[in-house]
């Protein structure tokens, strides 16, 4: 009997450990899509994104896989089939570095992704050493070409200062806010983002701010929510799970009428619906892919249709996914325009290239940021509505000091 119970305990302990291992985040994973045989061998793109944990998005690899499928259907890039290998960069610099090492050891030809700035900056020395192009989702000043001292990194999303700039403008010109809550997680990009919001808002005459920070793993924001009770509007810059928690607690504390502007991570809510629909009335977010909702954007319409056909389970086309879809095509266009897979040729082409993508028109500015259009989108009742669009933005980290 003792043997039996001991054996049962051992089996259960093994099962528990196994389940824990299955559910744990971190590490890296890889998958590949496509590709038909090619005499030249495939052009391998490493997709570097958060693929596990609370900040991951189910089906996150689908759009870039779709891009590869579509490129391959047209003969690939200059005759070479495209292969996507996905790696989990997690939320930290360490996990990103591990994923980058793995990707480089597996011989990727280019990289797309890195939504966490710290992950890119930690990995960049290795990428630079490998001398391969990287199209990033980096938003902060540390991921600009100037900061990285290299022209192999190009951002396919908007920059934090641009995002902050339009948040401040929207607070002033539309909400007529006189005081702003600045709630953000403690990591670099959200901290910098809200610092920019404060700077730009001050330039517009808003003088009262309530600054609140919290760890990204926070499970209770009561104190922060109570502190912002008297503000006219709140800028919330954190992870999607933080956004949902903040809104939920604002409603539970009678603050549901305070307008909340979420950062670009707010687009995540389309998929999770973590904020109940009846609590979305005053929630807006800054979209870096408002082109998706533009009826005149035929690329966006085709993308949405193809995505839903290829991946019926995907219910939300926004968040960072369209940017990664566009990035694959941008890379392909740069290679084909320069008729070379060499990094120097690709970077030379990216400098002048103009690409009409799902999220809008891409054209690099002096910081290497290629998308310079943002919209404020309402989340009310989960019916996307563009409230205001700001175009021709210029990232000006150096001007901000």
């Amino acid at each position, binding site marked *: 009997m003792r043997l039996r119970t001991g054996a*049962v305990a051992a089996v259960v302990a093994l099962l528990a450990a196994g389940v824990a291992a299955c559910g744990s985040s971190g590490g890296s994973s890889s998958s590949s899509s496509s590709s038909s045989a090619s005499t030249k061998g495939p052009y391998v793109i490493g997709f570097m994104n958060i693929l596990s944990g609370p900040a991951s998005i189910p089906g996150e690899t689908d759009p870039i896989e779709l891009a590869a499928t579509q490129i391959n259907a047209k003969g690939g890039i200059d005759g070479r089939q495209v292969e996507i290998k996905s790696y989990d960069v997690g939320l930290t610099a360490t996990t990103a570095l591990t994923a980058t090492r793995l990707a480089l050891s597996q011989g990727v030809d280019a990289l797309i992704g890195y939504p966490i700035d710290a992950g890119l900056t930690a990995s960049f020395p290795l990428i630079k050493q490998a001398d391969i192009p990287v199209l990033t989702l980096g938003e902060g000043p540390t991921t600009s070409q100037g900061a990285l001292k290299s022209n192999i990194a190009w951002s396919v999303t908007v920059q934090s200062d641009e995002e902050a700039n339009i948040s401040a403008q929207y607070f002033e010109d539309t909400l007529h806010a006189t005081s702003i809550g600045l709630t953000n997680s403690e990591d670099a990009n959200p901290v910098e983002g809200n610092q920019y919001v404060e700077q730009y808002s001050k330039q517009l005459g808003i003088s009262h701010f309530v600054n609140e920070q919290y760890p990204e793993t926070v499970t209770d924001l009561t104190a922060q929510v109570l502190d912002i009770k008297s503000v006219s509007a709140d800028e919330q810059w954190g992870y999607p799970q933080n956004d949902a928690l903040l809104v939920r607690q604002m409603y539970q504390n*009678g603050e549901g009428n305070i307008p909340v502007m979420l950062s670009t991570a707010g687009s995540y809510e389309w998929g999770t619906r973590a904020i109940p629909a009846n609590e979305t009335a005053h929630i807006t977010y800054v979209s870096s892919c408002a082109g998706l909702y533009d009826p005149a954007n035929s690329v966006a319409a085709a993308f949405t249709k193809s995505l839903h056909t290829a991946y019926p389970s995907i219910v939300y086309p926004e968040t960072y996914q369209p940017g990664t879809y566009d990035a694959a095509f941008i890379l392909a266009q740069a290679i084909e325009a320069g008729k070379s897979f060499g990094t120097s040729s690709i970077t030379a082409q990216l400098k002048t290239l103009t690409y009409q993508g799902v999220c809008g028109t891409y054209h690099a500015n002096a910081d290497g940021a290629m998308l310079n259009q943002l919209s404020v989108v309402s989340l009310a009742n989960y019916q996307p509505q563009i409230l205001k669009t700001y175009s021709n933005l210029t990232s000006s980290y150096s001007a901000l000091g």
Partner: protein
Amino acid sequence: MTQFVDIFGNGLADGCIYALIGLGLVLLQMTTGVINFAQGDLMSLGCALAFVLLVRVGMGQVGTFVLVLLMMFGAGIVLERVGYFPLRKRSPMTIMISTFALGLGIEAALTLWLGSSPLSVPSPFGTNVVHVFGGTISEQDVFTMIITVIVFVLLFGLLHFTPLGRQVRALASDREAALLQGIRARSLSALMFGLSAALAGLAGMLVGPLLTFTPTLGFGLLLNTFAAVVLGGMDRLGGVVLAALGVAVVTALASGYISANYGSAYPYIILLLALMIRPQGLIRSVSGARY
């Protein structure tokens, strides 16, 4: 005054959640001598079950409440059979590690089942608030406080006015003597694991509408609860409840009036300060009691 009421009300509600988790910890410790590190994850499980029954199954609030409590009681018994019973003659450290592993297993299983995205658990009171001295307290918070008082009274009655409670207190006071007197610790342990898990599930159901469910929800709350349990004593229900309310209210006040940025550190600062002043804890432990 308005701000004080807001902060104090939220602190009390947080304290009630800590108290419910802490009561489960203490009950178990009294009966088995085990500190259950899976208690926070059991709370997450209760919250997850409430979400599934309310949102996905469409069950009513009362039915969900009852069913989750029953399911959690069952989960507690399973936990006892798996994580405690086979190891009961091993060192307490072995059993603690076992409960820790099972907690991780529960967390991972919840992630596989519901994903890691936040989920919103509906409150029976929606987003209604009550106004007290100009401040606002959510009706869910008030409900949490009422339920906690009821649970405490019932548990107190159970421990002090029933033969079952007498056995539990005897085990807590002098385990070896109690076992020599013929107290059946085996059956008691299963019962208390079930009761403890049901308390965790209750805490999960109450806190879910105030926060959002994520698989890691319970662990952070468990850490704060530990501070209260250490302060209140591992063998005194009243002490744990008082300490839980104290820790939560002081944390809330410090977050509100000093800085919210150190909210997760305050419980431990309070614990350190209190233990510097009273190394034996705030409440005298049970020793040499007569039953």
